[in-house]
């Protein structure tokens, strides 16, 4: 199998590539909508800001390709900003509409906590999750979903309050944390998803 990593020119996907390599899973970078439509597995890494991230996806026609994958329950994994791009909108870039693959929006953490939320936080899954297990994951985020999207199972964590650390529905998994930087626990999560 081969994982297509969506790459629209943002630099730091080396950690994702390295993680797949350690799992002995082949991966390749692409910004081609047809490749994203047809690949066995697709990874949407997300670094940067919501608005520019959506603009890049639209520029390459990747928005529709990703929406089709999700609608057809084809294996898709989104990381960090990727989870937010799958949603409706983000306070980071007001007015920009996301992929609407899930129904939640991203909001900035409150003033009560230091931002970004950097470090290892515990993830506690809803009953019956397929990919997410309890464990410590590495986060680096200033925005997060505040509510569970409708129809998705949620792995929760807590900072200024409880928030979705990861969501899954069928073969689609989206993580606010970085599984590729979450040690063995993260690699095992990626392995479960690549096996689906």
């Amino acid at each position: 199998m081969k994982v297509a990593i969506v790459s629209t020119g943002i630099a730091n996907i080396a950690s994702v590539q390295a993680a797949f390599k350690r799992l002995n899973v082949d991966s390749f970078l692409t910004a081609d909508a047809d490749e994203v439509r047809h690949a066995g597995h697709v990874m949407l890494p997300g670094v940067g800001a919501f608005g520019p991230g959506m603009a890049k996806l639209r520029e390459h026609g990747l928005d529709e390709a990703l929406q089709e994958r999700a609608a057809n329950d084809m294996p898709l994994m989104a990381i960090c900003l990727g989870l937010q791009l799958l949603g409706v909108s983000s306070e980071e870039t007001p007015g920009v509409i996301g992929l609407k693959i899930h129904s939640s929006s991203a909001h900035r953490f409150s003033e009560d906590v230091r931002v970004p939320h950097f470090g290892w936080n515990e993830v506690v899954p809803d009953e019956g999750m397929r990919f997410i297990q309890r464990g410590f994951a590495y986060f680096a985020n200033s925005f997060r979903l505040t509510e569970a999207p409708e129809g998705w199972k949620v792995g929760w964590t807590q900072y200024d309050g409880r928030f979705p650390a990861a969501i899954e529905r069928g073969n689609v998994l989206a993580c606010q944390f970085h599984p590729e930087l979450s040690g063995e626990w993260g690699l095992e999560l990626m392995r479960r998803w690549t096996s689906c």
Partner: protein
Amino acid sequence: MGLGAYEKVDFMLTVRVIPCLDVSHGRVVKGVRFQGLRDTGDPAELAEMYEAQGADELVFLDVSATHEGRDTQLETVRRVRERVSIPITVGGGVRTADDARYLLEAGADKVAMNTAAVLRPELIREISERFGRQCAVVAVDAKHTTPDAWDVVISGGRKSTGKDALEWLTLAEELGAGEILLTSWDRDGTRSGYDLELLQAASDAVRVPIIASGGANSAAHLFEALEHGASAVLAASIFHDGDMTVRDVKTELRGLGVHVRL
């Protein structure tokens, strides 16, 4: 409202314990006050060992980073990236957004700016806007001037800038720093504990996380830093000398009531 992560209990963000590796020409070295370097090993092997011990992140500071040394530095980052699945911050010789890009492409997750950012603060904005705030670490070396003031020193501590460290932290945050790596020049290499007054003043001055650095020699020192507002604690010699593993230190911290990942 306390902001120190250590105050939180159970099902909360853990405190980060970060070994720092000084690298020169592709090898790990350690300096006392950045002088008298000695070779203590291979960066990739040490990185793997620290991950196995439970290190939460790794920081690599290339003390020899120059234009000529860049290829060696990038090769080191690539070799480390192949071996570890925890975040890597790399500093040394980051003068432009392109320098940051090369490091991120090689496998760094964050880049640390120091002297170049002091000389040209816009560098922080450039890197933060292009790659995201979570990639932009500003490393600050601070030296006591009066009992409650610190100057920024640069070029490996050789030059004083006359800039007030707390003002610089505030500006760095405004320009887009996602995190501050704050080293006490007075304490670095002394093993006498972190500069707690500096940490408290800095954590009151900014809202981004602060990594405490310079002077750690025991879990008790790390605990003090967390009590004074640090979100993460960085140390070198206590780990490199093999006196204590990262796991030993985190176990002790847990015994003191700190929330750690073990």
